[in-house]
C-alpha cells in the first residue's frame, strides 16, 4: 500500500476513535428511567432517599463518583450513599441490567428506585435529578 493511502487510513482510524469518544462523552452521566415497583433489598436506606452506586474493582470513574455522591450525602444527612460491588450483588446487577460501572440508582425513602444515572456522575446532574424525583426537606427547616 502506498504511503499516501496509509496516511489516509490512519487518519480515518483516528477519526473513528474520536467519534466513539465524543459519543461516549455525550452519553456520560446520562439520566434514565428505571422500571421498578419493588424496593431494593439488603441496602441500608436513608430516611428520605438513597444513592445506590454500583462499582467494580475494574472501574476508572468509580472513585470520582464515590467522592461526589459521598459529598452530596454528607451535605444532606437524610440521604445515604451506598456502594455495592457488582460481584457481591449479582441479583441487583441482573435485575437492573447493569452494563457499566459506575451506575447510580436513586432510591426513594421506601427503597424503590426512581432514577438511574449511567456512568461517572456530574454533581449538578445528581442534584437536579434528586430535586426532580425526591421531595427533600430543606436543610434550614430541620
Amino acid at each position, binding site marked *: 500500500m502506498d504511503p499516501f493511502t496509509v496516511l489516509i487510513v490512519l487518519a480515518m482510524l483516528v477519526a473513528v*476513535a474520536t467519534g*466513539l469518544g465524543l459519543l*461516549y462523552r455525550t452519553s456520560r452521566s446520562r439520566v434514565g428511567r428505571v422500571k421498578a415497583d419493588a424496593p431494593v433489598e439488603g441496602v441500608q436506606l436513608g430516611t428520605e432517599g438513597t444513592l445506590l452506586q454500583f462499582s*467494580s474493582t475494574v472501574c476508572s470513574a468509580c472513585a470520582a463518583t464515590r467522592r461526589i455522591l459521598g459529598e452530596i450525602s454528607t451535605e444532606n444527612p437524610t440521604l445515604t450513599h451506598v456502594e455495592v460491588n457488582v460481584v457481591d450483588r*449479582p441479583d441487583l446487577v441482573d435485575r437492573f441490567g447493569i452494563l457499566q460501572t459506575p451506575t447510580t440508582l436513586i432510591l426513594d425513602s421506601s427503597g424503590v428506585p426512581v432514577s438511574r444515572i449511567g456512568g461517572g456522575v456530574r454533581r449538578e446532574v445528581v442534584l437536579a435529578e434528586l430535586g426532580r424525583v425526591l421531595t427533600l426537606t430543606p436543610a434550614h427547616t430541620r
Partner: protein
Amino acid sequence: MSSRITQVDPRGPRFSAGITAFLLLIGVGLALVTGTPQDLADRVLSPVFGLFVALAALFAWGAFAGVARHPWGVLFRRVIRPRLSPPTELEDTAGPTFAQGVGLVVVATGLVLYLAGVPLALVVAGSAAFIAAFLNAVFDYCLGCQLYLVLVRAGVVRHGGARRVA
C-alpha cells in the same frame, strides 16, 4: 506481593495509554505498508513483527507486573507526576491492569494470525487496540473495564475472584 502498589494517580494510566496509542498507530501504518509477506521467514523478520512483539511485551509487563511498574508508569511517576498538581482521587490499579491484559490478548491474537499468514491480522488487531488506548488516553474511557463487567454478568468472574471495592 506485599510491595505491590494498589492505588495510582489516574492520570498515570492515561499517560501510558497515550504513548501506547501512538506506538499502535505507527504499528498499524507499518502493517499496512508491509502487508503479509508470503514467506514465514520474511514475516518474522519484518520490522512490523518486531514492533508488535515489543507492544505485546509491554502489555504483558503491565498485566503481570502491574501498571505502576510498567515503563510508562515509572516514567510518569518520575518525570511527569512531580510537575502536576495532586490528583483529586486515586484509582485502583485493578482496572488499568486488567485493561493491559485485554491489550495483550488482542495483540497476541494478531501476532499468531499474522504468523499463520492471515491477511490484515496486525492491521485489525492493532486498530482495535489503538481505539481502546486512544479512548483511554483522550476520553478517560476504559473499554477493558466494560469487558470486565460483561465477564461478571456471564458468571466468569465471581465473588472472591476480584478484590472488594472499599
